[in-house]
């Protein structure tokens, strides 16, 4: 990293921040707001850091573990479908702040897809931050108006007679898709199975690898 070339009148430590010359105005604004709020004692810098660390720690891996366990253990699958939040806790996973997490099962007869038409509600603790397209205006619109068209764009072709279900997360409930176990995976261990579970398959816009 190049050195700083501007004065500071306060200590700061942003090892991953770009330097002022490279920084976009919005980035400057966000940092200035944080500094202002820390100086005023409104928030604690350490608390902000902890929240950054938490967000960065999130990925689809935890969701994939839930799915893989459900694939190998039918009793766990039933518990997952009854209460996904409790099932996550059972595996020692962080289900996130939402009081209710619901897993919905894809079968040979039913395919689920999740959207938040009003904003971007998403099970971040289990899947990581949502992809840009999930938060985009066209996805939010077309996931309810033209879900089959959306699936086509994502390369998913549903067999005839498969019922398509779309869930719009308008409130505090977070939805997670339990995708179908791929064929020819008998005898795969849980880790091998988890590796097949993609983020997009847990949103419902892809089948597992």
């Amino acid at each position, binding site marked *: 990293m190049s050195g700083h070339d501007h004065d500071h009148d306060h200590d700061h430590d942003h090892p991953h921040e770009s330097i002022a010359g490279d920084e976009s105005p919005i980035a400057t604004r966000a940092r200035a707001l944080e500094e202002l709020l820390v100086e005023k004692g409104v928030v604690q810098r350490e608390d902000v850091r902890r*929240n950054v660390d938490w967000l960065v720690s999130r990925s689809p891996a935890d969701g994939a573990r839930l799915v893989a366990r459900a694939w190998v253990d039918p009793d766990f699958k039933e518990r997952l479908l009854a209460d996904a939040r409790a099932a996550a806790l059972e595996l020692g996973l962080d289900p996130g702040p939402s009081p209710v997490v619901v897993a919905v099962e894809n079968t040979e007869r039913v395919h689920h897809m999740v959207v938040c038409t009003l904003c971007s509600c998403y099970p971040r603790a289990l899947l990581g931050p949502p992809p840009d397209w999930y938060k985009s205006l066209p996805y939010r619109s077309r996931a309810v108006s033209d879900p089959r068209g959306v699936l086509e764009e994502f390369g998913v072709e549903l067999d005839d007679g498969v019922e398509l279900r779309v869930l719009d997360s308008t409130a505090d409930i977070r939805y997670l898709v339990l995708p179908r176990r791929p064929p020819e995976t008998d005898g795969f261990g849980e880790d091998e199975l988890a590796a097949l579970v993609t983020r997009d398959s847990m949103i419902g816009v892809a089948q597992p690898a």
Partner: protein
Amino acid sequence: MERAVHDRGAWPTVEPIDRSEHELADWELLTDALVHSLAGEDLMNVDELRRGIESMPPDEYERASYYERWLYSVETILAEKGVLAPGELDARLAS
């Protein structure tokens, strides 16, 4: 009935979905974290965050990136509560 700009379900569009993704920039992680810290201090809850986002002028909302909307909301809500004085952040940026 006219819809608010954030109310996008079945909003008429033929726009294809841009599937490119970007890793969150530091300032975006920071903005997200700040909102959660403010929530922890009972200064801003998720409903207020959403309401603040929805209060953006429609054309700005549509042009803004996701975390630009969050930042707008934080400033709006905190100014409303007197946590930020009017123009305080702009003055700091100008100095």
